[in-house]
């Protein structure tokens, strides 16, 4: 653009506008940038015969040219100045990227900065941070180089930016601006250095320099976001180091009045200052955490603090703000919070389990207030809670203990009645015991090792909260499904999908089912039953509703039901017929891409293979359906189906009638004389009346192992011989073949064969396609004879009936 304009100026000299000098300043920043970027194109300007031009259109153009030149030289001067200045302050600290960076990078630079500063200022401090320093030495060197480069770049960029911002101000103002910026830089620098100094001082001798915490807090009130972030992080580092391993209890007024030694006074002063500063820091963090600019930094500080010092004062505030962010839309923040809470759950020793109870309570309330519309991560953290296995058992022991205590009390009372004479002695004794109790209580409060009783109490509370949350989610899901039948698709569903918490909830239920009370199992099973059968209602109304549970979710419901039943067996073998019906129908609704095959394989394993006893009718129906299923989908699915089928046939000898060639089933077929492939109830499908013709098609499967599997199944006898149960589970088969599917390419094999043939005789190579055609024809004929056979079979049956 600039170029063309200049050209215009040059070519029609008489049309030159009179106010050239003004336009000189009015060069837009775009033009300047363009020229800078394309200096090669602008070279002709310097080569222009100015004399000739002058002769043509007077001296005005020359002035323009000169001014332009002048400005360029000025800029160059700036540039050099900049580079020099940055080179003077060679320390890589000052060349931190000035442009806004994202949180992580920022953090790294800051820690490095503080370490560098520490290394410079205090050598004695080195041993404290030795490990970190050694870790970072190589990185530091690399960084120093990098930051130098960056400094140069910055130097180049700076004047540009300034000029860009100040379009119409005169040069002087620009210069002033640059200076100001420089001074700001310096201030920034000094503040950073101050932070580093204060931090190192504090770390070297916290008791002496405790007051500098306040100064650091003052710095954190700065307007500059970078300074604030830096100060927050350095405060975090300081606090992490100097917070003691016990909780500070501020002295009461009574205690303050008492005379104490100097030492005690000193520690009291130290502790109270520390606590106040910590409180102020936390307040600051919690306020800043709500602002989007500081959200990540503040959350990082909070999480690190909670993780490092969960025993210290004000932990509840920390915890509540962590829980508030647990399903934050920001991925980084959410990860941080979740991992913090996980580590809280898994390292209960640090805080004695009290925080676990609080965290679970807070999460439960959070879930409640958000109506279960949260990110799945927020519930997944429950999985890392550990419960003692014998929560329930100890109840009885305690009851016994209580009884004995009551007896003791009674005895004591009797004694008291007997001996009223020596009351003085007694009162003395009472005093003693009181004091002892108090001391014990104090001791308990200070040492964070709750006895078994308290621990159990906490665990039961945690457990009840966890299950409360799970049940809330289930109920919520049920309600939303209930609503969905009213075709209310645009209701308040958040960004996390329709039932975001259902999957982790089901997983958790399966994990903690051992701890679930028997009384609740009935309700739980009812819920699961309704959830698993949820979409059969919608099929009737023929509404496609995305709110309904997916096939894998429903399969998961069935799975959880079985797991719950199995873990709470109590020697009662319960037949979960409804869930079998669901599985029977879900097999047909399965689609390979949409639904997870692992869940299907797992449910085949748990529901069909692990169950020792099956109804004959039901087993036959499942055998037939699995064979049909194996025909339709990929290797992994059909292999897992075939493995299940084989196991079913091995267990149920009567079902091997399906392998016989005559349809009708004879006496075992029951009341239903004809196979009904679309029946929803496996008991009413009449599967024994049919023949497993699918197997003979599967023996011609392109995958060799599936075809051999089908062949072995179809060779199974109806005789009573005990065949060994195969060790492979459907899950295993699915995993194996889904892995193999990636590497297995049937085409390659045929190509290899073709290649071999070609090598053997080049003449026959031309005939290869013909041979293939013949083979294809043969195969087609075979298949069609089978299909024809089936049709004739059906016809014959129709005639019979």
């Amino acid at each position, binding site marked *: 653009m600039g170029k063309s304009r200049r050209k215009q100026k040059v070519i029609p000299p008489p049309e030159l506008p009179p106010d050239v000098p003004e336009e000189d300043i009015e060069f837009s920043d775009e033009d300047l940038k363009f020229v800078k970027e394309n200096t090669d194109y602008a070279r002709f300007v310097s080569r222009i015969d100015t004399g000739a031009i002058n002769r043509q259109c007077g001296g005005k153009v020359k002035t323009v040219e000169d001014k332009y030149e002048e400005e360029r030289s000025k800029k160059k001067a700036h540039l050099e100045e900049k580079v020099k200045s940055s080179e003077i302050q060679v320390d890589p600290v000052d060349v931190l990227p000035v442009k806004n960076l994202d949180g992580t990078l920022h953090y790294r630079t800051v820690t490095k900065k503080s370490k560098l500063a520490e290394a410079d200022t205090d050598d004695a401090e080195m041993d404290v941070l030795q490990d970190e320093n050694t870790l970072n030495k190589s990185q530091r060197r690399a960084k120093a180089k990098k930051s130098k480069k960056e400094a140069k770049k910055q130097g180049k960029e700076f004047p540009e930016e300034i000029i860009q911002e100040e379009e119409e101000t005169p040069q002087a103002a620009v210069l002033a601006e640059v200076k100001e910026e420089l001074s700001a830089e310096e201030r920034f620098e000094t503040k950073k250095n101050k932070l580093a100094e204060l931090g190192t001082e504090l770390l070297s001798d916290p008791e002496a320099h405790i007051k500098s915490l306040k100064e650091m807090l003052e710095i954190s009130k700065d307007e500059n976001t970078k300074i604030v972030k830096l100060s927050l992080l350095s405060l975090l580092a300081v606090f992490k180091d100097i917070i003691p391993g016990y909780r500070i209890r501020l002295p009461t007024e009574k205690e303050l009045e008492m005379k104490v030694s100097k030492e005690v006074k000193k520690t009291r002063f130290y502790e109270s200052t520390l606590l106040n500063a910590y409180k102020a820091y936390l307040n600051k963090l919690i306020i800043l955490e709500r602002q989007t600019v500081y959200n990540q930094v503040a959350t990082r500080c909070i999480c690190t603090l909670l993780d490092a010092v969960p025993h210290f004062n004000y932990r509840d505030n920390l915890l509540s703000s962590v829980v508030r962010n647990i399903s934050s839309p920001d991925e980084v923040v959410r990860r941080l919070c979740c991992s913090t809470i996980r580590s809280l759950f898994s390292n209960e020793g640090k805080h004695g389990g009290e925080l676990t109870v609080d965290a679970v309570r807070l999460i439960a309330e959070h879930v409640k207030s958000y109506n279960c519309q949260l990110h799945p991560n927020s519930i997944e953290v429950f999985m890392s809670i550990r419960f003692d296995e014998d929560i329930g058992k100890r109840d009885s022991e305690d009851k016994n203990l209580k009884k004995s205590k009551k007896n003791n009390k009674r005895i004591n009372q009797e004694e008291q009645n007997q001996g009223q004479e020596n009351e003085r002695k007694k009162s003395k004794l009472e005093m003693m015991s009181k004091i002892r109790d108090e001391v014990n209580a104090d001791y308990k409060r200070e040492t964070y090792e709750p006895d078994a009783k308290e621990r159990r109490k906490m665990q039961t509370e945690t457990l009840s909260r966890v299950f409360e949350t799970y049940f809330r989610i289930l109920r919520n899901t049920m309600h939303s499904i209930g609503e969905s039948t009213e075709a209310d698709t645009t209701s308040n569903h958040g960004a996390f999908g329709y039932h975001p918490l259902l999957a982790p909830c089901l997983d958790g239920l399966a994990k903690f089912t051992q701890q679930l009370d028997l009384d609740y199992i009935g309700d739980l099973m*009812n819920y699961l039953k309704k959830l698993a059968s949820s979409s059969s209602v919608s099929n009737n109304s023929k509404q496609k509703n995305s709110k309904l549970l997916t096939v894998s979710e429903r399969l998961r419901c069935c799975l959880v039901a079985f797991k719950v039943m199995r873990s709470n067996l109590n020697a009662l073998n*319960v037949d979960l017929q409804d869930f079998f019906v669901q599985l029977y129908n879900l097999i047909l609704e399965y689609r390979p891409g949409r639904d997870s095959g692992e869940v299907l394989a797992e449910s085949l394993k748990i529901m069909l293979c692990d169950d020792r006893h099956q109804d004959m009718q039901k087993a036959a129906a499942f055998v037939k359906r699995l064979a049909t299923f194996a025909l339709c989908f990929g290797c992994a699915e059909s292999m897992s189906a075939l493995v299940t089928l084989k196991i079913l046939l091995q267990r149920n000898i009567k079902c091997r009638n399906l392998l016989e060639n005559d349809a009708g089933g004879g006496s075992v077929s029951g009341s239903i004389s004809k196979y009904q492939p679309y029946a929803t109830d496996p008991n009413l499908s009449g599967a024994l009346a049919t023949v497993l013709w699918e197997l003979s098609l599967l023996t011609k499967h392109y995958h060799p192992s599936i075809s051999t599997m089908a062949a072995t199944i179809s060779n199974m006898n109806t005789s009573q011989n005990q065949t060994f149960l195969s060790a492979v589970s459907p899950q295993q088969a699915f995993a194996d073949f889904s892995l193999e599917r990636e590497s297995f390419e049937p085409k390659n094999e045929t190509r290899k064969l073709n290649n071999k043939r070609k090598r053997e005789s080049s003449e026959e190579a031309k005939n290869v396609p013909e041979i293939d055609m013949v083979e294809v024809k043969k195969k087609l004929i075979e298949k069609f004879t089978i299909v024809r056979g089936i049709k004739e079979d059906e016809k014959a049956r129709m005639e019979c009936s």
Partner: protein
Amino acid sequence: MRPLDENETTVVFEKIFKFVGTNLKNIVENPSNEGPESEPGRYCFRLQKNRVYYVSESLVKRATNISRKNLMSLGTCIGKYTHAGSFHLTIMSLNLLAANAKHKVWLKPTSEMSFLYGNHVLKGGLGRITDGIVPGDGVVVFSMSDVPLGFGIAAKSTQDCRKLDPNGIVVLHQADIGEYLRDEDELF
């Protein structure tokens, strides 16, 4: 022989519904492949001398040839009206119920005989039980090898069975196949 009137139908259906639930539809709509007709007919309920029979239509047509006094039995007898006027299912209905049963109980081999002598099903004899049984439901009793043995009324829900002691009654006896021997004279 006559069709059931409205009252009788509701009584009979309610009784059967206890055992088979919604599968009652299958019982009513079951196609019969009896007789010379090419199209399968239906089954229907007929009353003959205070007994209720489950008969195919073609058989009903042919049975009209026999006078009411001389007709002993037709189709499957599923129950009878007592002198007091209430309806009882008899053991002959077992096949019908077992094929469509909603609630099932499987007996351990050791307790089969006890049930076949007319005793109730105890928790100790329970081999397996379907989920979701409510007290008062009709339950069909099977042996572990899926042979129907009889039926009865649930005394306890599946949940309660877990905590029940081994001598508690789970299913109240109504009919068992031992009756074919014990009550041979009264059955028909």
